[in-house]
């Protein structure tokens, strides 16, 4: 059992990493929001989802956060009428990725907020540690 403030910083650091990964997944979803298949009737890009899970840090006993899994969203694809597209089926419909831009934006905002709060924890812990070290300074 080490310094609790250091453990707090480590835990926040794992939160920062997890949220970074979340932003990466969101960016993949947004970048591929128009990625259709290339052969008639083929599936387009499927939206990715990310789940987090707790992870015990054996050194300090702190509960960190880690990316548990990156899976795919199983909601059905939307259909768009575009007969000229190489991915169009016999009726002229193209399957579009099941990415909802509004949802991704909201998710990104949440990732941003979560990242911010983890950063604040790092900042505060750091300040508390330096305040304690500063006790040794001065007064002589």
């Amino acid at each position, binding site marked *: 059992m080490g310094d609790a403030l250091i453990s707090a*910083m480590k835990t926040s650091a794992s939160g920062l*990493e997890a949220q970074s990964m979340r932003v990466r997944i969101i960016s993949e979803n947004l970048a591929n929001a128009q990625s259709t298949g290339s052969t008639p009737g083929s599936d387009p890009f499927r939206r990715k989802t990310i789940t987090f899970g707790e992870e015990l840090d054996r050194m300090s006993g702190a509960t960190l956060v880690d990316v548990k899994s990156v899976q795919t969203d199983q909601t059905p694809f939307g259909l768009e009428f575009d007969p000229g597209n190489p991915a169009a089926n016999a009726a002229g419909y193209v399957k579009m990725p099941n990415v909802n831009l509004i949802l991704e934006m909201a998710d990104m905002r949440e990732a941003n907020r979560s990242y911010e709060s983890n950063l604040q924890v790092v900042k505060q812990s750091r300040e508390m540690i330096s305040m304690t*070290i500063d006790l040794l300074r001065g007064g002589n």
Partner: protein
Amino acid sequence: MITSAIGDSKALQAIQNTPVQPNGAEMLSASEGFEKILNGLGANAFEALRTGEATAIAAIEGKASTQQAVMATMEAEKSLQAALAIRDKVVSAFLEISRMQI
């Protein structure tokens, strides 16, 4: 300045009044204690600095994340600051003892 001088002289009087008879063995263990503290501080600080530097270089090369680099660097900075603060304290304590009237 005056108050600190008064404080010092009072502390000195207190030390002189305490009925301690320092023998050779005690003196030796005291200086060993100082040395041990300084050595330990140096080793810890250098270890933290080395880790911080290695992680920073890994981050520049793209092998480690920005978060890891920042954390390692901050850890190194904190260790160094703590080591310096304790070193200053230990050195001033040593000087205080060397200035003591015999």
